[in-house]
Structure formats: structure tokens, C-alpha cells
């Protein structure tokens, strides 16, 4: 089956994002199709490169990056939800007069039309 996963909460504070990651891994392990993951609402904070937990803690941002890279899954971040929450690309940072953006590697800022199209094509939506 073709799945779409939507992550609506930040990397730390609630369990939503880690459950979404474990679920997404399980989808791949069991042979399902997962083209892209959408980070929306507070979920855009999973793309914050500046998340820097202690060494003995999980770094979900890294885990998502590795997962996306390993299985060639697009990590889509809603651009307007992200800018409101302080997750911006280098180009946006330049325009805002900042030295550097903080969008983590492997994540892509996209519009909501990408999400709508993915929903249209999928068999199942799972929201975390």
C-alpha cells in the first residue's frame, strides 16, 4: 500500500515524532510504499538543525535525516508553518538579514500543494 505520513509535533516534548519515525521504518520493513513524509504544524520543528541534545539522548533530527537518505524518502516541510516557527533555509535567512538558515540536511521546504497531491495518490494517511 501507498502511505502518507504526517508529523504534527516537534522532535522533543511529545512522543508523536519518534512514533512516526518508528512507524515509517516499520512500513518500509514490511514492504509498503512511503514516498514522502510531511512535517506540518509543530512538526516542522523536526527540521531544526540547531537541535543539539546531549550525547546519551536520541537526536530525532539526525534519525529523520538518515532515514530519508537511506530509503530515498522525501522529508517535506511546510514552508509557511516553518517560517512562523523559525525554521528557515539559507536563502530565506539572507533575505531576513541573518547569517545562516537552520533547515537540517535532507529536509525540503515545500508548499501544501505537495501534501494535497500526495494525499490524492495514496491509499492511507497516518497522522502523528
Amino acid at each position, binding site marked *: 500500500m501507498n502511505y502518507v505520513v504526517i508529523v504534527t509535533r516537534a522532535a522533543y516534548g511529545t512522543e508523536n515524532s519518534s512514533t512516526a519515525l518508528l512507524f515509517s521504518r516499520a512500513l518500509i520493513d514490511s514492504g509498503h510504499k512511503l514516498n514522502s513524509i510531511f512535517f506540518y504544524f509543530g512538526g516542522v520543528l523536526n527540521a531544526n538543525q540547531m537541535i543539539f541534545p546531549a550525547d546519551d539522548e536520541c537526536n530525532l533530527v539526525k534519525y529523520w535525516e538518515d532515514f530519508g537518505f537511506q530509503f530515498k524518502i522525501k522529508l517535506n516541510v511546510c514552508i509557511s508553518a516553518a517560517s512562523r516557527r523559525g525554521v528557515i533555509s539559507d536563502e530565506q535567512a539572507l533575505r531576513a538579514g541573518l547569517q545562516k538558515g537552520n533547515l537540517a540536511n535532507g529536509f525540503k521546504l515545500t*508548499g*501544501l*500543494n505537495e*501534501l*494535497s497531491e500526495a*494525499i*490524492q495518490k*495514496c491509499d492511507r494517511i497516518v497522522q502523528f
Partner: protein
Amino acid sequence: MKSIAFIFSHAPHGTSFGREGLDIILSASLTIQDISIFFIGDGVFQLVKNQQPEIILSRNYASAFCILPLYGINKFYFYSDSLIERGFLEKDIFLLDIQILNTYVFQEKLSQCEGIINF
């Protein structure tokens, strides 16, 4: 998926779910033909008229719900018990022409949708 249900279950302004949820619906209306919107629990507050969120530094997005019919979205379902629990006894306090459904019909309408997204 051809038919999607969007469910609002949070009051406006306390969280961003209402505003950002509405953004998804506006975008989805361009690609998904059959969209139904359900309001349950505190979600029934979303469509209340005469909101003044500027006073609490929030954005007034409620009027944007009114353009949904122009995008071909006309199914607005309210859960009757949620309205009664909150003392909403008149339909004309809401911005749109809503349909009030009892438990059975609400569940029935929801189960007819292929996908569900919650706000």
C-alpha cells in the same frame, strides 16, 4: 484518495490547528474533489461569528472559512452533542450554513470518507 474528512476538535486561537488546518483545506480543494469538514468538541467554536482575536494578538482567520463554498466545499457537519454541551442552541451564531448531525449520522458521514485528517 478521492474523499477526505477534515475534523476540527480544538477551539480557535488557543492552538494554531484551526488556522493551519484551514490552509490545508484550501490547498486540498484544488486536488481533492470530495471534502467534508467535521466540527466536534471545542472545534465547534471555530465558526462562531464576531470573533475579535486581534485583542489577544491572534489572527482573524474565521472569515476565510466563508470562502470555502467558492472552492466547492459545502459539507460542514457539526456534532449535535458538542453544541448542546456548550450551550449553542441557535444555528445563526455560526458563519456558514452548517448541518447538525446526531451521533449515528455523524459517524455514518465520517465512515463514508476514505481518509481522515485531524486538527
